[in-house]
């Protein structure tokens, strides 16, 4: 089972390292990366300042494994990586990192979009949006 969940925000250094790790894989000709960043949504007269993520990890890991397998069936990929934060991620920080690599370009766009949608729809991850005044509300994907 590949590790997906990381504590806190996903750092730019982590993302750079992930790219560097692929330089030895010479069949790859195209990478595509999706980064989700926590947005300062307005809620009434308040703003979101952070999202605190939790997950039903055992189920999430099973589901993510199925999604990975399905993606390799569906697209011609050399490798793919999905990382998602748990715990607090502040506005402006990265909470999801999807990284897809293939010999050629076309498949990586489609695969990235498909993977992000699958994670949003099928993986039990929950987000508590913390507001300016320390109130909170529960995030719902639209």
């Amino acid at each position: 089972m590949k590790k997906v969940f990381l504590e806190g925000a996903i750092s730019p250094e982590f993302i750079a390292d992930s790219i560097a790790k692929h330089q030895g894989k010479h069949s790859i000709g195209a990478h595509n990366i999706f980064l989700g960043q926590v947005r300062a949504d307005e809620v009434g007269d308040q703003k979101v300042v952070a999202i605190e993520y939790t997950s039903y990890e055992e189920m999430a890991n099973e589901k993510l494994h199925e999604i990975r397998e399905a993606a390799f069936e569906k697209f011609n990929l050399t490798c793919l990586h999905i990382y998602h934060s748990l715990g607090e991620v502040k506005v402006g920080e990265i909470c999801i990192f999807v990284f897809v690599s293939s010999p050629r370009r076309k498949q990586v766009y489609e695969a990235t979009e498909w993977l992000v949608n699958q994670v949003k729809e099928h993986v039990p991850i929950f987000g508590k949006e913390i507001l300016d005044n320390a109130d909170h509300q529960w995030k719902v994907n639209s």
Partner: protein
Amino acid sequence: MITVNYFGNIAEAAQSNSETLDKKSMSLSELLDLLDSKYAIAQFPFQVAVNRKIVSKQQALNISDSDEVALLPPFAGG
């Protein structure tokens, strides 16, 4: 023992992330009624997972000893 896991706003309502019910066997609908009487969960949108697989709330399903049930509010990954 039946284990029930709570997440998101349902964990807030239950004031717990997880509990074990001292029951050998009950139907899914009996379990949901019991949890509604304790925590008024019917006010929330949620899905049910039994042993980490999503099931329909209406399904005639028997929950027995050592099963793991989870109440899952709308997913918010990404």
